[in-house]
């Protein structure tokens, strides 16, 4: 277990965070001054720059999918030899890496769609369809390969109930691990949301973002906190509590 931080360490870290925030604020102010134009115009220029990449926003997604496909093929090649423990672990690791890249690609495809909004609609829609189809196909094939390693697993990626079916076919150790992944995500998002909200609030002061952006991020944060707290209350005191 890690030793608890001393009061001195806590104070130093706190001051460092304040100093970094001050530097960031000063930097933002300098950028704003250097721009030599109104904040709205600067933001419009930045947005134009983002939109300028057009369909090229899909390229990183394609790279992720190439990696995912490569790991899937490498993992699949190991499947006939997985009677041995070492080969089993290798296949499991490779297929898991394939899922990591395809999962990131699935989210990224939607981000790319939003960012390439100003590109000619034809190629963008076509690239979106190709990336989404590639993602779902590679995920489906990877899940089928994982089911060879774990025949007890249930669920199809084509089904909207996939996550529930998969979780219910996991044993106690796997469910405990999923709980740990979720908790880590919760902790990280609990840092990301406040930073995003402060950033948006600052940008809103300079009319660089619309109030809707602040509302949207705030709403997502509220949903996360509410779901966590309500679920905790239900599990501990409600009808859904575990026995």
């Amino acid at each position: 277990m890690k030793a608890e931080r001393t009061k001195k360490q806590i104070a130093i870290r706190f001051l460092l965070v304040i100093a970094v925030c001050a530097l960031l604020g000063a930097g933002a102010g300098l950028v704003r001054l250097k721009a030599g134009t109104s904040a709205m115009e600067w933001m419009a220029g930045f947005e134009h720059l983002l939109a300028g990449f057009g369909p090229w926003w899909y390229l990183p997604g394609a790279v992720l999918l190439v990696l995912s496909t490569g790991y899937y093929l490498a993992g699949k090649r190991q499947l006939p030899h997985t009677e041995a423990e070492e080969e089993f672990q290798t296949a499991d690791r490779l297929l898991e890496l394939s899922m990591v890249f395809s999962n990131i690609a699935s989210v990224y495809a939607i981000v790319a769609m939003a960012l390439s909004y100003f590109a000619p609609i034809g190629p963008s829609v076509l690239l979106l369809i190709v990336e989404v189809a590639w993602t779902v196909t590679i995920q489906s094939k990877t899940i089928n390969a994982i089911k060879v390693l774990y025949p007890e697993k249930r669920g199809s990626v084509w089904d909207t109930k996939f996550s529930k079916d998969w979780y219910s076919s996991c044993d106690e150790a796997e469910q405990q691990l999923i709980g740990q992944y979720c908790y880590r995500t919760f902790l990280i998002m609990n840092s990301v949301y406040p930073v995003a909200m402060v950033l948006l609030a600052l940008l809103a002061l300079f009319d660089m973002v619309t109030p809707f952006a602040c509302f949207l991020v705030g709403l997502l944060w509220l949903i996360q906190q509410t779901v966590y707290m309500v679920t905790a209350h239900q599990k501990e005191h409600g009808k859904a509590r575990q026995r």
Partner: protein
Amino acid sequence: MPLENRLKEFRAAGGLNQQELGSLVGASRQTISLIERGDYNPSITLALKIARVFGKSVEEVFYLTGEEEV
């Protein structure tokens, strides 16, 4: 006090592979592997199921090392 076990030894004696033992106790092959390596401490329910498969008591399969008298 780390929890040790003789799972691998009893499994080999019983002629079971990890997948087969997992199926008998409702756990995955990976979980059996994790328990054998000492990377996961099973619940009492799972420990009892495993011990029952081998016809042993839980204490014969799982034991604490560096145990002190209480």
